């Protein structure tokens, strides 16, 4: 993307994926390299295209929300939550405060697991198996907590329209368990992070590569930790009502490189722990679900949420039967893609892949526009789209 102006002769192309140790999901990295230096990069993400937005069309809204959770297995909760926030906003459904607290709690717990996946993945890419394993080990304690709350490790399906599932209500003993685990985790995690930051070999791999300046971050709209690591102080949580009761800092870093992206996430986990403690300690009493709502016609409504990788948007309308029309999801990764492609230019091949990993690419959610035709790609004409998918109502 960057080398648009100056034309460089490109010697060869290296392509990886869609099945490859560096990728945790099917996508393809095409690196254009001279000798070992990446001159340009293209990420082809359409291998995970499942047509998920189309699936929603015509489903009753309660059903649809369970698909929304399946958009992604890493940030399943944000999708489920944001999907219900759309209808709650559009039809002014009141959510009991206790339910909001529990939603925030689940969100922050899953944010921690998600960031720890990134560490695991990034250190696999760095080649440091031990750190990757320790990260996955630390992650287990929060996977347990999520499954205590939601009944499932990956898809806890905590939110429902108007609140949270009664199953996810916090009992006194669960509250105690959470607080204990958080303390235990924090201590171990501190040791882990210090150890990483002190390791000269690992740090020499991370520092000084994958620069993404603040201007570029804003220009490409690199949201979430990717943008915050370039000094762009943007976090949807600061604007959300649900987060009003809680005290936390937005972590930013000015150094703009791969290390910054890791460090920002590492520090964000401490903020999440802070929020979790506040939730558990000041959890209001009361019901967890408000069932006095009725699905009716709703105009397009949009909801924004800070997912673990950046800003997430869900939007849909309801027809008069309470069925979903024209669901749209914009997940954080598509906007980060351009930033990733930009950031890895000028680095060694092995480092370019690390840079891409450090932006936490996670693409199953964002593949919607499909490249058709094998061999030579082309864009579908309107007629073909209609032929293939039928008219939209």
């Amino acid at each position: 993307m960057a080398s648009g102006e100056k034309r460089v002769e490109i010697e060869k192309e290296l392509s990886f994926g869609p099945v490859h140790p560096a990728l945790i999901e099917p996508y393809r990295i095409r690196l254009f390299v001279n000798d070992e230096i990446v001159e340009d990069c293209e990420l082809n993400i359409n291998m995970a295209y499942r047509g998920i937005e189309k699936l929603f069309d015509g489903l009753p809204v309660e059903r649809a929300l369970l698909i929304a959770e399946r958009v992604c297995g890493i940030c399943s909760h944000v999708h489920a939550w944001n999907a219900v926030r759309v209808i709650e906003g559009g039809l002014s459904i009141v959510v009991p405060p206790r339910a909001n607290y529990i939603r925030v709690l689940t969100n922050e717990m899953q944010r921690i697991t998600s960031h720890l996946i990134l560490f695991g993945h990034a250190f696999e890419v760095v080649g440091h198996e031990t750190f990757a394993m320790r990260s996955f080990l630390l992650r287990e304690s929060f996977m347990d907590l999520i499954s205590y709350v939601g009944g499932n490790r990956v898809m806890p399906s905590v939110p429902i329209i108007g609140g949270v599932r009664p199953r996810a209500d916090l009992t006194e003993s669960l509250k105690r368990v959470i607080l204990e685990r958080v303390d235990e985790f924090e201590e171990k995690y501190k040791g882990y992070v210090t150890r990483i930051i002190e390791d000269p070999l690992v740090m020499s791999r991370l520092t000084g590569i994958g620069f993404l300046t603040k201007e570029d971050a804003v220009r490409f709209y690199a949201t979430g930790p990717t943008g915050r690591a370039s000094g762009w102080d943007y976090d949807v949580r600061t604007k959300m009502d649900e987060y009003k009761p809680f005290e936390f800092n937005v972590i930013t870093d000015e150094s703009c490189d791969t290390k910054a992206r890791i460090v920002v996430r590492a520090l964000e986990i401490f903020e999440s722990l802070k929020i979790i403690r506040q939730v558990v300690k000041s959890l209001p009493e009361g019901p967890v679900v408000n069932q006095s709502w009725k699905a009716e016609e709703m105009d397009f409504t949009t909801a924004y949420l800070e997912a673990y990788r950046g800003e997430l948007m869900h939007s849909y309308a309801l027809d008069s039967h309470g069925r979903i029309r024209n669901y749209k999801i914009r997940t954080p990764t598509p906007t980060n893609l351009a930033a990733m492609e930009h950031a890895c230019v000028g680095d060694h091949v092995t480092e370019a892949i690390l840079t891409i990993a450090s932006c936490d690419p996670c693409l199953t959610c964002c593949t919607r526009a499909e490249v058709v035709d094998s061999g030579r790609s082309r864009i579908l004409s309107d007629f073909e789209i209609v032929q293939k998918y039928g008219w939209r109502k």
Partner: protein
Amino acid sequence: MNLKATSRKNAIHIMVAYTGGCNGCDIEIVNAVLSPRYDVEQYRVLLTWNPREADVLIVSGVVTWQMVEPLKKIYESIPEPKGVVAVGACAVNGNVYKNLVGDIGQNEEIWAPVETVIPVDVKVPGCAPRPEDVITGVVKALPKILEAP
């Protein structure tokens, strides 16, 4: 048990192919391999990324349109004897992507279940299956490999 079967039982190389699920299963498989809490290596199972080395192919996800050919190719590249474990509801029956569609009636973007693309020996249900289910699934694929000539 003869030497051949013993050697096969004592060294199982698994390869993982993600074919476009939601990531949930992928992460749980990675968990089973990388998390010291589960540690597949203690069951003599080793992870590889090279189909030439693999014995058991673990497939997760709905097999999107573009993953069909790569998946077939990977399967072909594994030398006999080999087994396939389909992990997760997506790979087993297409999950919500196939069975819970609104106006469209049929989702043509996915080829799930995995059976329609390559032969499957063991199915591990769950969305997402727990890591211990994944490991058990791999173990269940063994008899076929052990008995092969």
